């Protein structure tokens, strides 16, 4: 049996380089104004999966993402870097999902891919920053979870040893497999796209995307079935509709505040050692530095 690694990834608006129009007046993210990218920590997760594949020749890496049709882009990105294939979970019924509804859908998709050994995802996505989806998915799958992973120290068919990056240091933990891992941004960055894989997989499309293609490559997809990216709907996952989308999402946004940083009061201090020491203590005490 192949060692199966499922990478959970999300396409997110690039909130790292935001301009003036990044937020709409109602306080929600203006997705149209921001480029869509592979969530950064999910790329770190992909790298962990690919480096296991480097070591275990029979390992396969499958990318799983939930999102609108265009999220197929990150499946291709993963394939350019060495993932074997990917599935796009897409359905209007998923719209408005919070972390609970998302992890429900993801866990169903992961079960569909059983038997698997590892489920790896980024710690959190830069659009929501909740860090909940990985752990919730693990919980629903009933498998052990290791969060904040920085390095996979060793792995075989039955067991994994992982170094975790915690606030005050590191921790090394063992787990049986299957297990879920969420990867921290301090883990190695993802490798570059591989030229040959890019040329091989750049025509990979979902059926929906194919309908919008101007060029007719029908023959190509008959000859190379691996270029078809499968789309899974709620029905494909046998999902209960009340657990999906808005109805499956207990999160309610109470209020959104527009916070503008500005200084309100100022303090003048001298340059004596004592006063500088006092300033240092204050900054450390308020967690601004240290």
């Amino acid at each position, binding site marked *: 049996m192949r060692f199966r690694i499922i990478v959970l990834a999300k396409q997110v608006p690039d909130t790292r380089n935001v301009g003036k129009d990044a937020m709409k007046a109602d306080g929600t993210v203006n997705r149209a104004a921001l480029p869509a990218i592979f969530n950064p920590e999910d790329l770190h997760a992909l790298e962990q999966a690919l480096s296991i594949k480097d070591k275990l020749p029979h390992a396969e890496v499958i990318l799983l993402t939930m999102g609108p049709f265009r999220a197929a882009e990150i499946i291709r990105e993963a394939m350019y870097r060495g993932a074997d294939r990917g599935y796009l979970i897409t359905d209007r019924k998923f719209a408005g999902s919070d972390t609970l509804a998302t992890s429900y859908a993801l866990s169903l998709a992961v079960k569909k891919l059983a038997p698997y050994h590892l489920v790896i995802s980024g710690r959190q996505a830069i659009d929501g920053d909740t860090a909940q989806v990985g752990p919730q998915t693990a919980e629903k799958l009933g498998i052990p979870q290791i969060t904040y992973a920085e390095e996979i120290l060793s792995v075989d068919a039955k067991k994994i040893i992982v170094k975790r990056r915690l606030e005050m240091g590191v921790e090394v933990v063992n787990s049986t497999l299957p297990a879920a891992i969420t990867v921290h941004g301090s883990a190695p960055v993802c*490798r*570059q*796209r*591989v*030229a*040959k*894989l*890019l*040329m*091989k997989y*750049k025509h990979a499309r979902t059926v929906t995307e194919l309908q919008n293609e101007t060029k007719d*490559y029908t023959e*190509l997809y008959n000859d*190379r079935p691996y270029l078809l990216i499968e789309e899974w709907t709620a029905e494909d996952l046998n999902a209960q509709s009340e657990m999906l989308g808005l109805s499956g999402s207990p999160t309610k946004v109470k209020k959104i505040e527009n916070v503008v940083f500005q200084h309100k009061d100022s303090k003048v201090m001298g340059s004596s050692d004592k006063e500088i020491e006092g300033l240092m203590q204050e900054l450390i005490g308020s967690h601004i530095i240290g």
Partner: protein
Amino acid sequence: MENFYNDNPHLKFHLNHPLMEKIVKLKESGYTQKEKYDFAPLDFEDAIDNYDKVMEIIGEISGEIIAPNAESVDKEGPQLIDNEVKYARGTQQNYDALVKAGLVGFTLPREYDGLNVPTVPYVMSGEIVSRADAGFANIWGLQDCAETIHEFGSEELKAEFLPRFYKGATAAMDLTEPDAGSDLQAVQLKATYDIHKHRWILDGVKRFITNGDADISLVLARSEEGTSDARGLSLFVYDRADNAVTVRRIENKLGIKGSPTCELVFHNAPAKLIGDTKLGLIKYVMSLMNSARLGVGSQSVGIAEAAYREAFKYANEREQFGKSIIKYPAVFEMLTNMKVKIDAMRTLLYETARYVDVYKAYNFTSHERKLEPEERQEAKVYQKLADMFTPLVKLYSSEQCNQIAYDSIQIFGGTGYMKDFPIERIYRDARITTIYEGTSQLQVVAAIRYVGNGGYLANMRERAQQLVKPELEYLKGTLEKMTEQFAKTVEKVNEFGDNEYFDFHARRMVEMAANVLIGYMLLFDANRSDVYVKSADIFIRKGRSENIASVSFINNCHPKDVNDFKM
């Protein structure tokens, strides 16, 4: 995310030149490889898209990895430990990233794990990498050696060495010796055939060898005992695994410090012959040198691009007398001149790369099928064009790259002279480009042939036949005047029938020709895209005045005046 390809639209402009359709079709033998390889292109658009995507990967590696490493690589440099060259940490990281991305040996055919990429995108990769770190570009560019093995090696040799590049093998070309620099005919490293073991053995010293401790080295050696000229030289492949070469030292250089320059001693080193004996220098090294010269051309454009960007940024930020210095004529003229020169260097570089592509593609096609007479004729024409323009690429781009790096420091003022900004490194890195792979003076020797035999003049007149938009006609008019002036001047210099006098003016005449020819190339770029109208206009006007200055000097210089310059 820094991407040195995506942030530079000029590269796409040259990658999408109309002649590419012909080149790619030949190179891909009519897009037949898709049956055999799942990564081969389906058609022309698909192939161009592949190159574009590959450039994007190289642009990203250059912007995100190579450029950020450049400073530490320059400081650390390579080290010699137990007869092994150890790259600086950053150099190794750069190379590993390129290997992992599957790019080393990417010009080779697919059967050798290559991507069958033509010369144009390959040269472009050199430009992109050089902008990030010119010294590292040498290590990257030495995959040229794979091309030489591919072009001239036997099937066994190709099968043995070529697939190693994809896996990350490094390469070196071992030509120079202590007493054979510009004059490679004087090479003495000895190759003897061991009739008992049926193999060649190399003995002797090589000097100034870039990447001297590489996995695979091409070595020029004297195989014919008792000879003393080019006809006694052959080319060999040496495999580092044979462990028969001592690295005596790594040179301490002014610039390109990350690129290890080695002195090597061969003792009883086994080696394999490439092609036939006696053709080493005459045929194989000449071909290798031509690609290396194109390589230095791309390196020069990359360095110039880096220098220009540094200066442009600084001139916008730096304020003096209450405004940014870019607002002063003395500064903005310098910057515009840089930009115009870069457009000029680049168009000459890629035009020449396309010539190389056409004739090489025909050469390889001729191994598969007999060429039609008109194809053979065309291959010949393009080969001649490549030979004619390669020395101009090397001469013009390396000289301009130095001028641009110089002016860039000037814009920085005192700050640029300090070690605080990358420009001081760029300036040091630029200096070698007019020297190695044949000095500027030697490029003039190669180019003057086409002044003497009318090659350049005929080419100018041929270009004049091409139509341009009415609003650009005036530039063509100027170029036509410059052409006639060039023709007259050459005729005048020739009239004296004095070789020394002709040589004395050689560089002036070659540079006059370059001004006209590059002027035409920029004019046609402007015809294809408005982006280049300004550069074409400025370049041609400046070129006109430079040529007038040269003519004025030549007209006032009698053969006897040459004596005044003798030392």
